[in-house]
């Protein structure tokens, strides 16, 4: 589903290279965890996958279902099924949450040539998905992410994900700032989306989230490269021994 080949990317503004020859393949149905110390390029990778303009790809390619997505803007990528759950969801005062959800769902449907949702159908979908994630209706009446607690913001991201039904989900440190109850709710939400035709990339610092979202593969990112890949036992190894051994072995 996703094939990243020898990717090099830098910050557009100052030219700092962050991703330096990254290779990664994620198959449909797979849950891939990406771990690594601070500054290794994890969040940058998530932004590059979703098409943020602040980064420039200088070499290599990203293939999604066999096609390069480098020329597509974030909205086009989203319509093709790529979803980024933000580490820091953005507050937008003046945009009502419900209006945002409706516009996003319908714009994606339009881009795919599907009919727009009727209002009752839309309302029903939101109500059902919100109940699953224990999101109170009051929260949906507020402006987008405004006044949401850290946990509420993360749950709102998962709500968007379940409503938009993407094919490639990228979760950028979705566990940060969550207490254990919120973590379980979020993990249940993600697990409910696991399916043979959908891939999930979980970016995280900690093993903890991976106890709840059990990955098929684990990749260690360091200085903009994948320096080691393995199965879920690799995450336990990292938890026990830290990154130093693996970094040392790769150097």
């Amino acid at each position: 589903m996703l094939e990243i080949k020898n990717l090099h990317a830098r910050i557009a503004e100052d030219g700092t290279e962050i991703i330096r020859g990254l290779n990664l393949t994620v198959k449909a149905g797979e849950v891939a965890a990406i771990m690594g110390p601070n500054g290794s390029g994890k969040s940058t990778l998530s932004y590059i996958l979703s098409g943020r303009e602040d980064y420039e790809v200088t070499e290599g390619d990203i293939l999604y279902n066999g096609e390069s997505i480098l020329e597509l803007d974030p909205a086009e990528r989203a319509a093709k099924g790529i979803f980024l759950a933000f580490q820091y969801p953005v507050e937008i005062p003046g945009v009502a949450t419900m209006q945002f959800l409706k516009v996003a769902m319908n714009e994606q449907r339009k881009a795919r040539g599907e009919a727009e949702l009727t209002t009752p159908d839309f309302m029903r979908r939101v109500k059902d998905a919100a109940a699953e994630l224990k999101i109170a209706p009051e929260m949906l009446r507020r402006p987008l992410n405004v006044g949401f607690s850290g946990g509420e913001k993360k749950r709102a991201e998962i709500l968007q994900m379940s409503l938009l039904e993407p094919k490639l989900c990228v979760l950028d440190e979705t566990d940060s700032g969550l207490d254990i109850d919120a973590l379980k709710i979020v993990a249940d939400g993600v697990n409910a989306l696991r399916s043979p035709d959908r891939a999930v990339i979980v970016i995280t610092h900690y093993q903890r989230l991976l106890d709840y979202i059990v990955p098929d593969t684990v990749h260690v990112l360091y200085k903009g490269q994948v320096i080691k890949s393995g199965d879920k036992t690799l995450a336990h190894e990292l938890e026990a021994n830290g990154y130093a051994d693996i970094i040392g072995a790769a150097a």
Partner: protein
Amino acid sequence: MNMQTGMKLSVAETALCEAYDHAIGELPGDGAVLAARDILISDFKEAGLPTRRVEAWHYTDLKALLRAVPAFDPAASAAKLAPLVEGSTVLSVVNGVADTRGSVEGVTLRTFSEALADGSGAEGLTARDSDDTIGRINGAFVRDGFVLDFPAGTDLAAPLEIQTTQNAGQTHTRFPATFGANVKATVIERHVATGENPAFVTTVSDISLSDGADITWVILQGQGAADTHLGQIRVTLGTDAKLRLYVINAGGKLVRQEIHVVVSGEGSDLKLRGINLLGGETHNDVTFTVGHNVPHTTSTEVIRNVIFDRARGVFQGQIRVAPDAQKTDAKMSCNTLLLSDEADFSAKPELEIFADDVQCGHGATVIDIDHVQLFYLMARGIPENKARAMLVNAFVAEIVEELEDEPLVEALEGVIAAWLEKHA
């Protein structure tokens, strides 16, 4: 005083003087009214239209900007519109003439032409000061409007819409309104062009809130792309009076809206919210003064501007705090979303504080679309142009939502969305 005796009159100045000579014979008014009109026009002839050398008009050089003034056009026929908010009571002024069939339950109502005819309207026909060009022109030419008297305790169930429509020529209207003690009401003052011909419009509202009155007053200006609109609202606030004053400019070619508030009752609160949607070649000026004259009063002023194309915007905001007006709390902010390199905005905040135990502040920002917000919306599949429109709308919708009156909020959001649809 801006003495320009012996100056050469501009085309617009000449047109106004000639229009007065033609119109005065048939403008309503008794001897006192006629005398007041004559004083105003003679002051106008002496001072002329203000230039940038007049401090109060520094950013709106009316003499240079006002190129022509259309003659009165009694044959111009404008259409009445359905109210902005469904279920409102509408008082209509079409082409400068009040529709006498209007009535509002519980409110004493007269047309301003009646007040002029019997001389009671003469009292307000004065300029506020030597730079009050709007008061001067309006007072000299005013033909009609409504005099509204809300008896103490009136609680208006539905909004009252004062609607002026025109599509050519000149119209000059006036709306004195007195709100008795503890009156609760929402008034929408709506000025709309129903045609494309250039029109010259002046309008003055003179409102006073007695003790405990709680009023929402919305000025919605939606004139045509060739129109000049000179508006003024004079406000007096009594003890514990609350006024939410919304000024929304979404039209016109040359616009100046003045807001002058006298805070004369302790415990009173003014919330001024301004939205200026500017596009094309519009020049739009909002000039605000508030005098906090007694202790323990509050005011907040939030102005949001969205500017496209080659439009120019001006906000002048002056907060004066009198020597014994201790514990005044006044905060003013002016935020501008500048969406074109050729657009221009000038903000002039002024604080004149003569009391020592007060909180007063002001701030002005000029911003572009927030790129992180734009990315977030696009990352959810919303195409760039639509995402931008949502963010522009959000910038102004935020302050409309403060009204907490669902039908009114929806109606105003509809006006904003329609404007953005046309201009963005």
